[in-house]
């Protein structure tokens, strides 16, 4: 059941349309990630949902309650929507405890106990109560920001690239902790990020934005395997996009004859089309299409191998290989495709 609905949202800044007819349904208790390149309008969308700004057009409803109808909007402080900003936005003049308790009534009976509870919940040591935000690490600051937003038991939690300021190792663990915490509490969450890996691993619904529009919405797996356009395909991970001739449920392309995923064959398509393979589908094998290794970039456990197909138009492909046994530059290798190709709806 839809908990948050956005209907035909539009927002302009001067001549620039930041959002253009965005419609999105977010189920109750779900985790939705909004991804897109910089300037695609994802932060604007988040600010409209939070109530920091009002849309020019469109409606926002949360749990059946109308929050915005065009420029008429419920102000942020009456929405019960929690927000965690990119760099935490902690109040620099307040201690950790006062930051967390900021949204609680100052005279509330269980205030101190509730703060302690929230600190434990986000994994902050109780000894940090009296610390100032500038004495915390980036990860700790984000935990304080999360606890502060959780304190008011929001109906909806908005996360605006909250992990991007953290280093790689801390990022994954913090993301996991936040994800588990919010799921456990049953809070509907929207994460805005420009990091596709983060979006795919965090969410159960991913929405890809570009130039103020929603390009595609679906489960992470569906989006990764069956993107609607090459742009969505490359945004969610590296993609090998080839022109192929479809016939009899198979695609004939530079990599040979490849089966086509069944669901793409509605109406038994024939003729020219664009197909997509993910790099991990292309394996080095004993037999198959011949290719020459053009470049190897060593990357530890995973290496990038660039190959040029022998014969034909010398199509260049980029593959991922485990660090062990990477072929040397100049070697002729054989390529085989595992699984089926995805066919884009539009003609090449």
């Amino acid at each position, binding site marked *: 059941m839809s908990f948050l609905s956005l209907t035909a949202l539009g927002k302009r800044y001067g001549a620039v349309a930041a959002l253009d007819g965005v419609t999105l349904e977010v189920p109750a208790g779900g985790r939705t990630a909004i991804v897109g390149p910089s300037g695609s309008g994802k932060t604007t969308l988040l600010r409209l949902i939070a109530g920091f700004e009002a849309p020019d057009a469109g409606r926002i409803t949360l749990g059946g309650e109308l929050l915005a109808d065009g420029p008429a909007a419920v*102000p942020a402080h009456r929405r019960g929507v929690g927000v965690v900003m990119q760099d935490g936005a902690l109040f620099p003049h307040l201690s950790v405890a006062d930051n967390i308790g900021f949204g609680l009534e100052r005279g509330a009976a269980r205030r101190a106990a509730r703060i302690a509870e929230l600190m434990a919940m986000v994994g902050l040591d109780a000894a940090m109560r009296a610390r100032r935000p500038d004495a915390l690490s980036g990860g700790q600051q984000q935990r304080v920001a999360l606890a502060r937003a959780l304190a008011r038991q929001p109906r909806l939690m908005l996360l605006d690239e909250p992990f991007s300021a953290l280093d790689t190792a801390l990022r994954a663990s913090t993301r996991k902790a936040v994800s588990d915490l919010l799921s456990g509490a049953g809070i509907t969450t929207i994460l805005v990020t420009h990091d596709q890996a983060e979006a795919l691993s965090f969410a159960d619904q991913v929405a890809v934005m570009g130039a103020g529009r929603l390009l595609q919405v679906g489960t992470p797996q569906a989006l990764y395997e069956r993107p609607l356009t090459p742009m969505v395909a490359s945004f969610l991970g590296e993609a090998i996009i080839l022109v192929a001739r479809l016939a009899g449920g198979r695609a004939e392309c530079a990599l040979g004859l490849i089966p086509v995923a069944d669901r793409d064959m509605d109406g038994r398509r024939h003729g020219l089309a664009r197909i997509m393979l993910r790099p991990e589908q292309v394996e080095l094998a004993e037999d198959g299409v011949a290719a020459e290794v053009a470049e190897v970039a060593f990357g530890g456990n995973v290496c990038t191998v660039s190959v040029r197909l022998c014969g034909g138009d010398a199509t260049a492909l980029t593959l991922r290989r485990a660090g062990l046994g990477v072929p040397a530059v100049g070697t002729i290798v054989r390529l085989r495709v595992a699984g089926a190709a995805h066919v884009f709806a539009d003609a090449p």
Partner: protein
Amino acid sequence: MSLTAFGKPSRLSPARRSHAVPRLRRWPRHLWMPGLALLVSLAALLPLGFIGWVAVRTGWATASALVFRPRVGELLLNTAMLMALTVPACAVLALALAWLTERSDLPGARVWAWLAVAPLAVPAFVHGYAWVTLIPSLHGLFAGVLVSVLAYSAFLYLPIVAALRRCDPALEDVAASLGLSPWRVFRRVVLPQLRLALCGGSLLIGLHLLAEYGLFAMIRFDTFTTAIMDQFQSAYNGPAASMLGAVLALCCLGLLGLEAGARGGERYARLGGGAARPPRRHRLGRARLACLLLPATVSLLALGVPLVTLARWLAAGGAGVWRLPEIGMALGQTGLLAATGAVVATLAAIPMAWLSVRAPGRLQRALEGCNYVVGSLPGVVVALALVAATVQVRALYQTVATIVLAYVLMFLPRAMLSLRASIAQAPAELEQAATSLGRSPARALWTVTIRLAAPGAAAGMALVALGITNELTATQMLAPSGTQTLATTFWAYTGEIDYASAAPYALLMVLFSLPMTWLLHAQSRRATGR
């Protein structure tokens, strides 16, 4: 080159080698800098030394008789009332104006922002002159508060605007998402971030209220400074004036302590990297017209009244008040004193400014503190100290050297602040590069750092010169007899109730102050690089 070439034993004998290396020096190269800084700070301590000396010389019995008397209590009460009413009124007014011009969609916000700063171009005693000639019956506490608020609230408006521009709007967004209404967001998030600006601006206004003579003399409201001037004019260097001066100095020190306590040790700077998004302007909606009334009324009172009064007196006086030889003489003398004072103050500021950037430490902070404390003392106290000192050395009494020394003591912090900021922008590496190219440390300092700091030094000089141009009390007490500056000539004419003849001098002071006021306005807006 093979490795063995390095391994070969030196052909130089040990004795010869020791001669080949320049003699090691035990002392840091720039020891003369702390020395000079110490010298300047000792000179700056003269007025504080004077207070101690007066207390000792007068003796406890006389001193207590002079201090613990109804007149001093009355003056203390007057001063306290003046502060208690003026400073909060300035704070509320400046806060309202700053919010309207920076955070709301007030029509013509940029113009109102400039008009809110512009009253600073009118010296306080010219404000007093304008109001008294407009409403001759105006006098007493409330008149003093009214004119002070109009003359000084820009001192709070400027830092508040700069602080508002530095606030990260994300904090306000977060507070709203935590359920705070706009008013509570302002009170709990915005206001605390303005604390340093409020403290600093209030201190500045407090110090001006303590030091100002002309404004309160015009408005016939007795403060310590007016009482000291009265005493001094009836019996110069009398113990009564000196003891009042000592109490006044203690008030200043108390104010400094109060401010240091109130500003606290909190951090207010934004956490995290990147640039903050620009703040959103609040829609005033139907309140727009009502909100326009505030800046319009303030501008009318703080700028309209002085300008209309000046225009009226100039029109009434006609061509007759433009006594060109006399005005030329005042201009020349003012210019000479201002230029000399500015150059000497800047030179005196170099050692301290250099130390605070290149070799900060406990000694440097203590010396710098001395200079700021003395710089915050009223001109009348500095002048009393110098009168007391120079009557011992008759050759110096009422000479240009003495008045320039007084200016340096009073305005040294202005020169130091500008100089320090620009020396901080001339990296130490450049000075080091110059010494590695064979320049002596002193030459490296002069040709590299001072050269790069020249624009800041010039700005500092302009600030000092402006201060001197509008200075009244110390000039009256210390300048050689016959000295006529713009301020003292203006004052002499108003003393004779010849308001028309005073008008050209007031106009000139306003014109000289305008560019500097514009600069301050521009600086407060540039605080975030916008």
